[in-house]
């Protein structure tokens, strides 16, 4: 397949792996920020291709995993309000909150629908004028422009019953938070590909400058990731950390101005709550006052308080998802991993999402198999 096969060529991969092995003399630790990278690294066996000197850690780049339990509880509470339809990306519905999950709420009668695009959520609002349709906005700079576009569409078409619970988060600020924390010493970061399509390479420049950590933006095919590791090793070995793009077919240094403009028009930057990290200043996207009507937080906060849905959030006992998203623990280091916590009965979000590190480890490196369950959403027979 054109534009895919070229990036999965095994001869080129072997060549790159060899070059990395030749170049790499000292032990280094890299973090892949993005859950999509974690998945690809495990799926293609990239850990087996790189030399033992290169240690890889997963970071806080799975949108579902970093959503704070309190925010998830709020989404579940919204789902229980009368005349509300919740629309969300698929993985979200299975994540356990403090007391319930969206899936559980759906089984109890709440109207919760999985959508593939924010525009679908707007269409659902259009088709159900008597209901309030709330989209649970999760994700990074990848999904934020599409959510902004959906709000603008709703405004343009006067679809007043469309709302967004904005839990959207920003990548560079949380990288800074992790580096400031200093818990996991990093030499290089595999920077997210799709996020960087939007934001470009400039926003990472403070990382090599202030922290001496190498940054290379990678695509999601195996050759992209190997090339990225190659460039990171080269930067680190030479003692010259910088920001490079190893995904030039997707990423320009200045990013995508149109997407950035949309984001800036609808959202302003504010604090966000991250699972495992806590409140990180300047790391979230809030809906601007001009679009306040579409902000589910504003529109429903009174109703939520009235419904008494403000019980304190609590984390699942023994779950180390918080440590996993910081890169402070590898999934098998969690006592629950594979014993209590499995994709069928996930305790924490990292086991739920296909982009979660625990799910990727479980799927590709487990020693036991899981009982059968349906592979597609809904029946295919």
């Amino acid at each position, binding site marked *: 397949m054109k534009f895919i096969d070229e990036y999965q060529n*095994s001869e080129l991969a072997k060549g790159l792996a060899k070059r990395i092995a030749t170049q790499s003399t000292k032990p280094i630790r890299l973090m892949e920020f993005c859950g999509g990278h974690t998945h690809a690294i495990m799926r*293609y*066996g990239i850990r087996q291709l790189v030399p033992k000197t290169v240690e890889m850690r997963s970071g806080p*780049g799975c949108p579902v995993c970093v959503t704070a339990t309190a925010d998830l509880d709020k989404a579940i509470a919204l789902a229980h309000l009368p005349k509300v339809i919740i629309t969300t990306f*698929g993985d979200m519905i299975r994540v356990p909150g403090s007391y319930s999950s969206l899936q559980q709420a759906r089984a109890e009668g709440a109207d919760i629908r999985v959508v593939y695009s924010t525009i679908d959520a707007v269409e659902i609002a259009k088709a159900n004028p008597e209901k309030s349709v709330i989209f649970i906005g999760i994700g990074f700079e990848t999904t934020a422009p599409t959510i902004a576009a959906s709000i603008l569409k709703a405004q343009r078409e006067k679809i007043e019953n469309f709302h967004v619970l904005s839990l959207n988060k920003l990548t560079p600020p949380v990288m800074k938070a992790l580096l400031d924390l200093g818990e996991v010493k990093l030499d290089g970061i595999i920077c997210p590909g799709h996020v960087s399509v939007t934001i470009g390479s400039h926003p990472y420049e403070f990382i090599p400058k202030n922290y001496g950590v190498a940054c290379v933006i990678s695509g999601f095919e195996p050759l992209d990731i190997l090339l990225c590791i190659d460039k990171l090793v080269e930067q680190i070995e030479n003692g010259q950390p910088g920001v490079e793009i190893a995904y030039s077919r997707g990423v320009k240094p200045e990013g995508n101005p149109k997407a950035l403009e949309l984001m800036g028009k609808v959202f302003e930057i504010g604090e966000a709550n991250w699972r495992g990290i806590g409140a990180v200043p300047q790391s979230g996207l809030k809906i601007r006052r001009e679009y306040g009507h579409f902000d589910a937080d504003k529109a429903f906060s009174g109703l939520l308080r009235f419904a008494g849905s403000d019980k304190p959030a609590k984390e699942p006992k023994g779950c180390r998802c918080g440590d996993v998203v910081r890169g402070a623990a590898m999934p098998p280091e969690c006592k629950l991993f594979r014993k209590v916590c499995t994709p069928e009965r996930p305790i924490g979000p990292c086991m739920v999402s296909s982009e979660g590190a625990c799910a990727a480890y479980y799927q590709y*490196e487990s020693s036991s198999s899981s009982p059968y369950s349906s592979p*597609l*959403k809904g029946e295919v*027979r």
Partner: protein
Amino acid sequence: MGQAMSDTILLAHGSGGKLSHDLVQKRFLPFLANPALNKLDDSAIFEASGRLAFTTDSYVVNPIFFPSGDIGKLAVCGTVNDLSMSGAKPVYLSLSMIIEEGLPLDELDRVVQSIKTAAEEAEVQIITGDTKVVNQGQADKLFINTSGIGIIPLGIDISGANAKAGDKVILSGTIGDHGIAIMSQREGLRFSVPVESDCAPLSKLVSQMLEASSRIHCLRDPTRGGLATTLNEFAQQSNVGIMIEEDKIPITEGVRAACELLGLDPICVANEGKLVAIVEPEDADKVLTQMKQNGYGRDAAIIGEVTNDHPGRVVMKTKLGPSRIINMPSGELLPRIC
């Protein structure tokens, strides 16, 4: 309103009275007629001897019509294939329908027509049946159950527990077509290369394979859960390891592109017209050549072999060289968001 009402299934169609009678006489018998069914007695009576295979399955697919198939074709092919995977030649099916009130009659006709077509191709007769009508909301348009009886030829012993080290793993064609076709239809995803369901009866393919060799040890159709599930079942039932090679697995451009786009693993996606065979190594080429003669086995390939290493587990050599474990998929397959 009266006009519209008469074109749809009513609760009265399930009452057992005149409308029920008409439904059977006008909408089922003309398509499915055969001596055993035509009698309309409480049971179908038939002669059979030898080793018999008996299976049942229910079909609740949504949507009921999808690219290159519908729930009727699926209900025949699914049960025919389950019989075939035991090495049996399917002969008789039962057909039981649970219809949601309000189903347009022309949709029912289309489903019955495709049941007829699929049954003819598979050379099976539907000899007994039942219909029930339920209130709106109590079923999703149409649910079908089929049970089937097949005859196992002498000397055939096929089971998921029969794989042994050295055996070859043969896959009959491209993977993931059915699952992606359903998903694209259900979610309104459109691809420039449309993906069609591979739903097909495999009974003839299996009898041709058995003519080529009686040393086919395991047969299974990788439906829900895909190739990954079937291979894991073999590995566990036979307590052997299975090693496959990623670049030997046939897959269409359309399915590959859709899976790349959605972040799905095609080996976990459902098929409805494919089979996996574990075959004595010396007979593998012979079986493969025979399979390629049949339209449903045209793209068949040897994708790996059975080994004594890692018993109970399936390992795949990826395109890049490293190997990875293939687990059974768990949970729903959901597109990525990142």
